[in-house]
């Protein structure tokens, strides 16, 4: 459970930072405003939707941190046989990076108001993300063809489970991306389009980060890394 504890410490750090700006030491019973006092809106300047997405990403991060925790706990048992990762995963990683870059370009274009570039970026991102999903399915088929079935070893089960969960999150993102793309073709409300593109980009970068972490975990580098850290500490 150490991974999730570390993750929660990070969340607690954010929460603590935010709380420290909320005047926890103030004495509300002594404050009385008079009519006409300048009363400011006490909220973040960030768009509400972005904060909402941020909170949601914390929940998603929590989910994957828990999968990782379970993975490490199960890995310690002797019957664990790591499976060879198909080389296709490298290509998939590249495609997902491309998808993120395309969305980043779309964000920049949306800020500059270049609607053609926004459309191009969104379409590229959508297609590459679809390609990533197809690539993942092909990787699954390669593995099953080589005899690495879901049930034959816990390492296999975890591989299918975690990659599947990540794929489902990409799929959900594609729904949002589809709506944004539709909005880009209508181009009715540029302000709103900019925000949706930014939200998509945020989600995509986060899922790319999760994928890189998951990839490192499944390839065994994460375990090696933790071993090195542990040796350094002791």
């Amino acid at each position: 459970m150490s991974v999730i504890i570390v993750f929660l410490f990070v969340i607690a750090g954010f929460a603590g930072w935010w709380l420290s700006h909320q005047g926890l030491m103030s004495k509300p019973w002594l404050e009385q405003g008079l009519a006409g006092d300048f009363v400011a809106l006490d909220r973040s300047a960030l768009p509400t939707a972005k904060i909402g997405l941020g909170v949601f990403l914390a929940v998603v991060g929590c989910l994957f941190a828990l999968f990782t925790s379970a993975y490490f706990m199960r890995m310690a048992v002797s019957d664990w046989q790591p499976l060879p990762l198909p080389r296709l995963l490298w290509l998939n990683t590249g495609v997902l990076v491309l998808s993120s870059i395309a969305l980043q370009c779309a964000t920049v274009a949306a800020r500059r108001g270049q609607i053609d570039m926004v459309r191009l970026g969104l379409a590229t991102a959508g297609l590459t993300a679809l390609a990533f999903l197809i690539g993942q399915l092909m990787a699954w088929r390669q593995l099953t063809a080589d005899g690495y079935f879901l049930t034959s070893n816990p390492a296999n089960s975890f591989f299918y489970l975690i990659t599947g969960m990540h794929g489902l999150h990409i799929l959900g993102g594609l729904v949002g991306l589809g709506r944004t793309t539709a909005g880009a073709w209508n181009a009715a409300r540029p302000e709103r389009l900019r925000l949706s593109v930014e939200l998509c980009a945020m989600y995509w970068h986060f899922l790319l980060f999760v994928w890189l972490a998951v990839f490192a975990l499944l390839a065994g580098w994460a375990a090696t890394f933790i071993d090195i850290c542990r040796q350094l500490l002791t």
Partner: protein
Amino acid sequence: MVDITPADGIPPAEVAEVELYHPHSWWTRYVFSQDAKVIAIQYSATATGIGLVALVLSWLMRLQLGFPGTFDFITPEAYYQFITMHGMIMVIYLLTALFLGGFGNYLIPLMVGARDMVFPYVNMLSYWIYLLAVLVLVSSFFAPGGPTGAGWTLYPPQAIMSGTPGGQDWGIILMLSSLILFIIGFTMGGLNYVVTVLQGRTRGMTMMRLPLTVWGIFTATVMALLAFPALFVACVMMLLDRVLGTSFFMPAISEMGEQLQHNGGSPILFQHLFWFFGHPEVYIVALPAFGIVSDLISTHARKNIFGYRMMVWAIVGIGALSFVVWAHHMYVSGMHPYFGFFFATTTLIIAIPTAIKVYNWVLTLWRGDIHLTIPMLFALAFIVTFVNGGLTGLFLGNVVVDVPLSDTMFVVAHFHMVMGVAPILVVFGAIYHWYPKVTGRMLNEMLGRFHFWVTFLGAYLIFFPMHYLGLMGVPRRYAELTDMTVMTESAHHLNSFISIMAFIVGFAQMVFLFNLIWSIRHGREAGGNPWRATTLEWQTPQTPPAHGNFGKDLPIVYRWAYDYSVPGAKEDFIPQNMPGSFGPSREPA
């Protein structure tokens, strides 16, 4: 839409991006509504409905325990199914949904001075997914083999084996699917509650001016958002074990002399994941109760809450600590003694912020102008019950005491007192308190007092003797207790007595339900602010609050939520949105 152009240097009352959804038909107004108040009532009604099922299940269990062998239809399998569904429904589908989905939806926007939740559409989806989860859960009663009988903790390997009711039938699959749906639905709602508190507050409503109710619900929601994923992960993995034959939790095991295909899974891993959710869950239902009870006591004792800052810190502190105590549910799982020592320590540390809260409630009452209204009675009953349940928690938090007691009725008594009866008393108090705002009418006083006394005394008569049964060694989770040496004749009598009390308390809840329905039409007219309370939900122009909550302009907040009996003020309460300085002790502004 309200005019949002700034005038004379005063900043706009609302931010332009907040767009209020307007319903166009009966369906979108009352059924597929995006109004948080309607969603709150939908949540509460559904939770109450499924809660009634759980109440009936507890009666059936008590029939078996109190009068063993009398009722043929309660087989051991059926008993386990009753126990499982009773526990799961009460903890998750009733308490969590009612506090966060019900009270959270109704009170957060009104109390922080917002027109609605920030993502109303997602909020609506949240309810419908919750309803779907409840329907899936209910469907398991009609599935072949019946609902699961694995115990509300669903421990593998027994949960998915053929010896457990529903283990190799539909029961466990429907249970796990229902939980997964619940978590997805809750996450949608939870995002709303958190972000509305962050971004939806009206002008002047700083975090430190929020009523403690909002603090409690807010912190509990943050915890739930971080804790429910653990249950989600556990459910998904167990579902794969059951349906696709993986071995996440299933060790090599043989059943009826036959080797199962599972190999090498870890049941302890499930326990870690489950309790990583399960312990925060206790505080997910307790923190909203803490918050609400603070407001009830302050309002009905006409006195400001004692130590507001401490109360806020304690809520946040309890929330954070509750994530590092989960393994105290696993003392008997064969853990390393140092591990147990660590978790015993963190568990006992939680007693400090909790005790701070109890002292502050008592000190709020001290020399207050206590009105023994029904909400106040329930609030007082909560303090007593919570202290009682908390003290036995100190027993069970210690490893050496927990090990002999952990499989006895003592534990049943403890957790019913602390997270069953105590939060439910607050739910009742809160309903008596806010019902006038929701419907515009008061609940019937006579029926209310009857309901209170029967529920409060009856719950004590049910659960207090159970502690003694537990100390005698009467085990929990047993469908048949007849031929055991610990079951002396007096223990049998006590069991029968407890069962009879359970029926009486259950009956009192029917009276309460009747009161809820009857008073919608026949209750006394309440007016806008019958309790003369300070918080914003009582200052709405209409009662019940109309769509958009606050009429043309959102209120501006000038003070904290607890200005009761301020010396020098005209009345004994000053609403949060009333400007001006009162009282000799305050510096003139």
